[in-house]
């Protein structure tokens, strides 16, 4: 941390020295009406604007909106004083802290808005300092200031690329949200993969399973990676396969980053989606059975799902088809079943089916109770 901070003046001065072009994020310094800047406190202890720039002496009308679910304040400090102001806020006696909205009385503070509640907003107008520099802004509500900050640049020069800007929180340097026109595409070129070894304290081995929020599934989804090129999404709400994709697995990095609002991203191409409402029918081919999820056991590292369909016990293991990346094999068992079992497919689902038992008719596989004891259905991309 200390090392990084020491690098800052070097990075800044180099960038400022070589860049003379005027950037459109700059506010004009005039005596005309103040320029408007809106900063929102948003979930995950962040300001939506990680930084902004004004010219020295500009009149600024700054609107601070609290779009988060907890209280926040907003303080602009003198250059380099963010952590000191934070310390002063922490040292406020309890009662004083509350009554002052966690804003210490400090010569190190330029402008401040005491803490406001969710959905509230407040406006301050001020004249930007005449002296060029990087003026940090920070929320000093208890616990927030170490991650919830940003930078007001008072300058006539250009800003450093945000990836190198140590005045913004680390999480904002590489999040792909560039707030100026100096985009560096290289930062966005490489997709972030969740299954790099550094995501967990163990080497991620295939098959891999995550219970995670997935697109186009209920919130009780299960994502499984079968081999480097094939994965599926199984839904514990309905106890059924939802879709299968080829390519990479999932990117959970955004989902993991904070409290879980962004859902997992699929790193590949979905080539099969179930549109039968669940392929299996028990006894009555016209009735979609009521499913109840019972859990899963690991069988040679593959999850074997256990559930009931209209009360009948079912297990299901999904493995990769031999033609890697081309399809899957679903192996089912029905214990003590006394009814026929039907496996429905859709002619338009882009798959070719075969099975270890039973008879196919018009895209429906029918199995006798005996055949249904254990059978598998192989589905391959056409």
């Amino acid at each position: 941390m200390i090392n990084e901070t020491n690098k800052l003046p070097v990075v800044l001065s180099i960038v400022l020295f070589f860049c003379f072009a005027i950037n459109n994020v700059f506010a004009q310094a005039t005596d005309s009406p103040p320029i408007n800047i809106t900063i929102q406190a948003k979930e995950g202890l962040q300001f939506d604007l990680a930084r902004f720039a004004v010219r020295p002496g500009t009149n600024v009308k700054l609107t601070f909106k609290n779009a988060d679910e907890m209280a926040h304040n907003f303080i602009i400090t003198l250059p380099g004083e963010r952590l000191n102001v934070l310390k002063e806020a922490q040292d406020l006696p309890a009662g004083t802290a509350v009554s002052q909205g966690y804003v210490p009385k400090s010569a190190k503070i330029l402008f401040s808005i005491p803490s406001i509640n969710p959905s509230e907003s407040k406006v301050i107008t001020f004249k930007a300092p005449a002296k060029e520099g990087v003026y940090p802004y920070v929320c000093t509500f208890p616990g927030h200031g170490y991650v919830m900050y940003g930078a007001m640049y008072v300058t006539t020069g250009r800003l450093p690329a945000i990836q190198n800007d140590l005045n913004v929180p680390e999480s904002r340097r590489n999040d792909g949200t560039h707030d100026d026109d100096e985009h560096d595409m290289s930062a966005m070129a490489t997709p972030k993969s969740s299954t790099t070894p550094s995501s967990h304290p163990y080497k991620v081995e295939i098959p891999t399973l995550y219970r995670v929020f997935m697109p186009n599934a209920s919130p009780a989804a299960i994502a499984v990676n079968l081999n480097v090129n094939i994965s599926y999404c199984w839904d514990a709400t309905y106890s059924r396969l939802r879709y299968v994709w080829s390519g990479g697995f999932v990117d959970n990095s955004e989902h993991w980053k904070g409290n879980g609002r962004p859902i997992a991203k699929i790193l590949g191409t979905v080539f099969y989606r179930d549109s039968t409402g669940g392929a299996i029918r028990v006894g009555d081919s016209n009735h979609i059975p009521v499913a109840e999820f019972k859990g899963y056991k690991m069988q040679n590292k593959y999850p074997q799902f256990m559930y009931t369909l209209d009360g009948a016990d079912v297990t299901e293991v999904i493995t990769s088809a031999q033609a890697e990346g081309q399809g899957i094999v679903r192996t089912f068992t029905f214990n003590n079943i006394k009814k026929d079992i039907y496996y429905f497919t859709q002619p338009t689902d882009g798959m070719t089916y075969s099975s270890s038992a039973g008879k196919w008719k018009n895209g429906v596989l029918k199995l006798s109770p005996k055949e249904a004891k254990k059978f598998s259905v192989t589905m391959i991309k056409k």
Partner: protein
Amino acid sequence: MTIFKISNIALGALLFTSISWSVVYGQTSLQSATPAYKIETIDIPEGLSAETGAMQFMPDGRLIACFHRGEVMTYNVTTKQWKIFATGVHDPLGILPISNTEILLIQRPELTRIKDTNGDGVADEYLTVTDKYGLSGNYHEFAFGPVKDKDGNLFISLNTASGLAGVSKEPRGWVDSSQLKNRMFSAAPYRGWVMKLTPDGKLTPYASGFRSPNGLVIDPNNNLFVTDNQGDWLGTSAMYHVKEGKFYGHPASLTWSKGWNRGNPTALPVAELDKMRTKAAVLFPNGPMANSPAQPVLDLTNGKFGPFTGQIFVGDMNRSRLMRVMLEEVNGVMQGAVAPFIDDQGLRKGNNRLVFAPDGSLWVGQNDHGWAGDKGIQHITYTGSIPIDVYKMTITPKGFDLTFTQPVNSETASNPLSYSFKHYYYEYHAAYGSNQFDVTPIKVTNVTLSADKKTVSISLEQLKAGYIYELNLTGITAQNGTPLQNKLICYTVNQLKN
């Protein structure tokens, strides 16, 4: 090994204490004795984002902890080895060990029984114990618990959803869309409820009115306590004494009450909701005390963790602090005081999970979870040096009795100016949080110190139910001059004592 280590520390502490005694003897010194508690930071395995969702001890003494990205790991406290037990679970926030090879774990979609059936140390069975509650898909729908009562019932709690985000197109359970505009809402069944799972596997709604109930504990008398976080309908953070069928104030959950036919409950008159609700046993004043209290844990160490046996410790997410709750029953109603316990002594923030080890030390699991806080695990050990602190605060007909952990200096303890009281209350309303209302200094009219110099009886000019009495102590010291550790204590008066 562990036992040897502890006696070593205790011996050191004793020696140190006697040295400071001799230093103090000839001079009026404020030199503090050995700190009563030692905090160490546990090494975390490489690659682990140690956002601690839960921590418990297995019967064989291994720590078991789960983390945000779905890892469940065991930690051998002697060899300091971490091992993977289970993976892939969804934002797990609670564990209850069953045996050395089996645990209950709550994750977003369900309560799961996770077991190592082949003895290789890694779980291979994940059985659904219950998933009979709704999931709208809103990110704020966390699930907490379980805790077990004497009769074998399990209790879990279900967070409400956040109005900052919507719901999934395919929620699990019926979605009440009239709720979606509420700041925190309960669109899917039993969000904002504490649920009871009976030994025969039936999940039933138990109590309603919760917002973000990130912490449950059951005492040996089967009393269930649940903490909740300041926000809409919750003027300041709270700990409730939870009983079946009661409503604790956040109205969103009322939608799922049996026979509810009154539409969006947040639209009911506040006065009506206020009448329906059961008030908190203890309020944590927002700011002075806590911003976001987490798991409560009961000290049943019989002195191994210091003088506070029977009391409850609670972590806070935003501060480098734990709090200590001192409860008493007055007219059949639970109420009491809260004070900081460990404050800025090297403890990090984000103190989400607490668990006592078999040796009586306290393990603290930290979590930021996208909010304030830190990651990691720390370990607090009692050094054997008795802290100078308020042991308990109890209400009397005239005011309060304060009992200290050791005899105090008579002069300062007998001085009414050492006790500065004010009272205030928080308003019950839909808006987020609340200001303090009717903030009034309360005059101390008399102070009496007991013969053993451990208890002061304080008479106040006025004592009113429905108020928090905030006490700031100044100048109180132990007899050797060591200043009081924590100078703030807040008592929630629900009932007056006659």
